[in-house]
């Protein structure tokens, strides 16, 4: 039963991702809106199936059996993808509409992080995607948060979790890229943020991955052209140079 569920949901998620990707490349607003709506609908349908699947699995098995963890993994990822879709969509809007969509994206990341947290605590998962994106989307909505004490505490929480996971053996370049980003957002100068990570004997793809993360944030308008944007651009240049990127 679980295999049938995961296969059908994976198919639906692939279709949604394809629609999301196509929407991002379209210039025609009406067509773009249609594709975003289609991606959203598919992700929401996948979530409904997964949540029902989780209830079914838990009825017959332990709360955190391997089947339940497999469903939880897809649930957290799908909420994350839905959050990302809404974030992409928000960035095509202006003013109030943009804020409204960003708030919706935030709420999806939040739910994704609830499931992700359950996986971290009970399934041994090494994942922080929703946890970090939740903060990134808040920052996209309000760049002034970078100087907010409460926000800084949240960033420190993510940093602590990322470090725990990296020390526990997580070594994918996304984790290290996130770690560099968090360290940078917490005020470390770009070269320091990188130097800390470089001590970990990183794979060459780390620079490229981190560069992608920073470029995406700049494209999304993080910092709105202010001081944070300038620092991000400097970080981007440094990554390009150190990683030998074209």
């Amino acid at each position, binding site marked *: *039963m679980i295999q049938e569920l995961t296969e059908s949901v994976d*198919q639906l998620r*692939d*279709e949604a991702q*394809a629609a999301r990707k*196509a929407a991002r490349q379209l210039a025609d607003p009406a067509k773009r809106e249609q594709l975003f709506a289609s991606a959203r609908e598919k992700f929401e349908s996948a979530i409904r199936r997964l*949540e*029902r699947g989780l*209830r*079914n699995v838990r*009825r017959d098995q332990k709360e955190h059996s391997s089947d339940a963890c497999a469903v939880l993994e897809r649930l957290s990822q799908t909420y994350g993808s839905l959050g990302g879709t809404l974030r992409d969509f928000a960035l095509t809007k202006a003013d109030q509409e943009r804020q409204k969509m960003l708030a919706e994206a935030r709420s999806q990341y939040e739910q994704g992080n609830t499931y992700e947290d359950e996986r971290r605590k009970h399934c041994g998962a090494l994942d922080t995607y929703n946890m970090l994106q939740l903060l990134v989307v808040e920052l996209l909505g309000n760049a002034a948060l970078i100087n907010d004490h409460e926000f800084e505490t949240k960033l420190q929480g993510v940093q602590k979790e990322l470090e725990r996971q990296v020390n526990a053996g997580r070594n994918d370049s996304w984790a290290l890229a996130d770690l560099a980003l968090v360290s940078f957002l917490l005020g470390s100068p770009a070269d320091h943020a990188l130097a800390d990570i470089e001590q970990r004997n990183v794979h060459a793809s780390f620079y490229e991955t981190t560069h992608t993360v920073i470029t995406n944030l700049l494209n999304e308008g993080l910092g709105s052209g202010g001081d944070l944007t300038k620092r991000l651009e400097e970080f981007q240049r440094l990554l390009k140079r150190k990683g030998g990127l074209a």
Partner: protein
Amino acid sequence: MDIAPLYGSKNTAFSNVILSSALEKRCAAWCYLVERERPHKLRPIDLLDERCADSFRRFLRLSSRLKLDLARGARDDHMRERIAEAEKDAAGSGAKAMAELLEVWAKVRATPPWLVESSKVKQADCADWQDDADKLKILEARLEELNNQACQLVLQGVRSDRKRIEGTVERLKGSAK
């Protein structure tokens, strides 16, 4: 196809050959299925036959997979048009909607709500089951519209299962957690 576990993932040229070959095989499978069994031309009533239903399910799965693969780079307008046309046929005849409703019924039969231990039932389960019952009601209506002797046994089965679900929901909705 996920090539990450293969050594081809370290060699771009080789991994492209693997991906291209996988795509060609999938295209060939789709064409073979469509030419040989013509699943896109099946009528809703044909799906009551398990062999036809299986062929239709394979057609939907393959079409969906292939559309994604073709959209990812290997440009093939003609192939995409063929898939779109076949899918349009399948949706237009009502076969796709019928297949979805029959799938709901198959799932109900695989894990009948009336066999679930009542102490484990939650409010959300009752809502899910009521949703299934509503879909089975639509399936009943479709089967009645077909007005064919071949539908009678299925219709009785669907109606009986729908009533059992409704009875279960009615019985448990007050006590569910």
